[in-house]
């Protein structure tokens, strides 16, 4: 058999090698931008609180008094060894921030992604198959509006409805303070910790808090998925092999399922995977809207304190995540589509 086996590992190595320059560029951009900021990062964030001497000391400790290129290489070294340093304003190690708050962002992102898939894929497929029908138009309008409305607007509307008027769901935080206090922290992912602890009340509480933020973010993504799936469906249905299958008397339902839908999804895996960038931006905004204790929320806090070290660290992390997901997507595509490996 000519497929799989030797060419897949080689393909993976190729992709990884191509990604390295990308990470480098992103990381460099972040570095340069933040260094280029006028004014001095130390005084900007803690200037009011520390004396001049103490500030000078801080600057030396952070290596800010050294020439730019030296700082750059130190920075690269730090990134490579995953030492992101400490924040300026409260001396917290950035890795700690990531550990404690990353789980919440991850939970939100995964939940939202699943909701978006569940809504977006079927609706997009229907819209593509029944082009220009009433259903198609309605679905497309839905797709446009979910994307046009900012995620925080949806958040506001959901809060008005579900938290305000109906009072069904909470509008802030990941769980009630009681739950957070009671559930033992093992994985730093609240939902999983609650499940491990076997505390069903806590699990319900966490899920209740998760619904609105996840649905809000998921709705945003679903709009894009609808559009992508629809376009892909349209192009796939024009495929010659679709007509050939029909010529063999294959029923419409089977043609859609086995030929059209599956083939339409393949290029989508790549594109949907690229939405991880959007997912992250959306997560930051969603966390701000619902006071969700994730990395995005922390990022905003530190931005308001003009703590460039924290901002740099968190954003660099985001950049690395984007790139890793990109590699993962490429590999998944290679697994699904036998043509790609060649």
């Amino acid at each position, binding site marked *: 058999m000519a497929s799989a086996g030797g060419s897949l590992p080689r393909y993976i190595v190729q992709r990884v090698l191509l990604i390295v320059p990308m990470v480098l560029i992103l990381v460099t951009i972040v570095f340069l931008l933040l260094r280029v900021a006028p004014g001095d990062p130390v005084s900007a964030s803690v200037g009011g609180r520390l004396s001049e001497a103490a500030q000078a000391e801080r600057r030396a400790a952070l290596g800010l008094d050294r020439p730019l290129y030296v700082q750059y290489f130190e920075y690269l070294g730090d990134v490579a060894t995953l030492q992101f340093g400490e924040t300026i304003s409260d001396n917290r190690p950035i890795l700690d921030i990531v550990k404690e708050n990353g789980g919440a962002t991850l939970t939100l992102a995964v939940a939202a992604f699943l909701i978006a898939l569940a809504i977006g894929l079927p609706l997009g497929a229907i819209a593509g198959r029944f082009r220009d029908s009433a259903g198609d138009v309605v679905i497309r309008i839905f797709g446009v*509006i979910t994307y046009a409305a900012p995620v925080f607007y949806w958040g506001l509307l959901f809060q*008005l409805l579900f938290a305000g008027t109906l009072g069904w769901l909470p509008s802030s935080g990941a769980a009630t303070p009681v739950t957070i206090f009671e559930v033992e922290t093992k994985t730093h992912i609240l939902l999983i910790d609650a499940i491990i602890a076997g505390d069903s009340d806590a699990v319900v509480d966490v899920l209740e808090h998760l619904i609105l933020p996840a649905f809000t973010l998921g709705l945003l993504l679903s709009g894009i998925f609808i559009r992508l799936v629809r376009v892909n469906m349209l192009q796939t249905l024009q495929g010659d092999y679709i007509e050939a299958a029909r010529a063999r008397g294959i029923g419409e339902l089977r043609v859609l399922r086995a030929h059209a839908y599956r083939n339409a999804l393949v290029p989508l895996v790549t594109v949907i995977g690229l939405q991880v960038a959007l997912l992250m931006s959306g997560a930051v905004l969603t966390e701000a809207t619902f006071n969700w204790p994730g990395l995005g929320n922390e990022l905003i806090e530190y931005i308001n304190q003009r703590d460039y070290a924290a901002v740099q660290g968190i954003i660099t992390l985001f950049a690395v995540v984007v790139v890793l997901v990109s590699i993962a997507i490429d590999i998944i595509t290679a697994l699904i589509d036998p043509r790609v490996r060649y």
Partner: protein
Amino acid sequence: MGITQRVIAPFKQTTGLARWILLSGLVLVALFILLAIFAPWIAPYGHAQVRVDGEMFPKNGPPSAEHWLGTTEGFYDVYSRVIWGSRTALQVVIISVVLSVLLGAPLGLISGYIGGWLDRVLVLVMDALYSFPSLLLAIVFAFLLSDLLGGGVLSAGVALTVIYVPQYFRVVRNTTISAREATYVEAARAMGAPRRTVITKYLFGNVVQNVPVIGTLNAADAIGTLAALGFLGLGIQPGEAAEWGYDLQRALPGASAGIWWTGVFPGLAIVLLVTGLTLVGEGLNETVNPTLRKRRLLPFSLPPRETAAVIADEPKDDR
């Protein structure tokens, strides 16, 4: 074809559903452009006005005769701020799109035409920028520029520029590469036209046709990103100009108390304007992208068959 004609051509070629999409989008966008231009005359109050005739506006007042859409917790008039917000949004978006095109298109042109290592480096940089979450990039730039340029419209516009440069770069570069190989360019060069002439005269026009689609979709994204920056407190400062995202941030705490007018209306404005721009962009895309066009067969009625007897008797044509 003149450049204006080339830009307008996609608008003229649309038919059927695509045309409806395009038209409704244009109507929405036109509405906001009018609001933006005539803001000083339409808006009853200034964007930061909190009192009239010495009397303060109510705090979080519901919609009333004096304040059609109510007031905010900062004593602002919602209706006025929605209108002034149109002006802000359009100013920022125009700055951002124009700058992006001015940066991205020439780079794409040069990169595509010259090729080589310059091209490869630029492509890598642009791809990296493109794959990065645009909001985060905007945050970084806003972070920087707020010190340099203040918290006004210009600073926001510039902050939003870099995000969109890669798209123009890419599209212009790809069109350049395919146009470069076209025979009429070869002929021009055979006649001894210098490189610069070839680029500006022959390739530019070809490339301009793609810009309207991307431009409108970018504008839609820019409005959203501007609002996001405003929501996070990184955008335009309240004193400088009215901005819908900022209003939404201020409206959030009141949501659980049931104060809906402070957020629903600015948000609605965002939705309408972005939808309008997206519809225009999508409508154009259906025309410009030929693979999506459906070749439609028109209905007609099949006339009855003529039998051999009929043909035999009447020596007329069989129409």
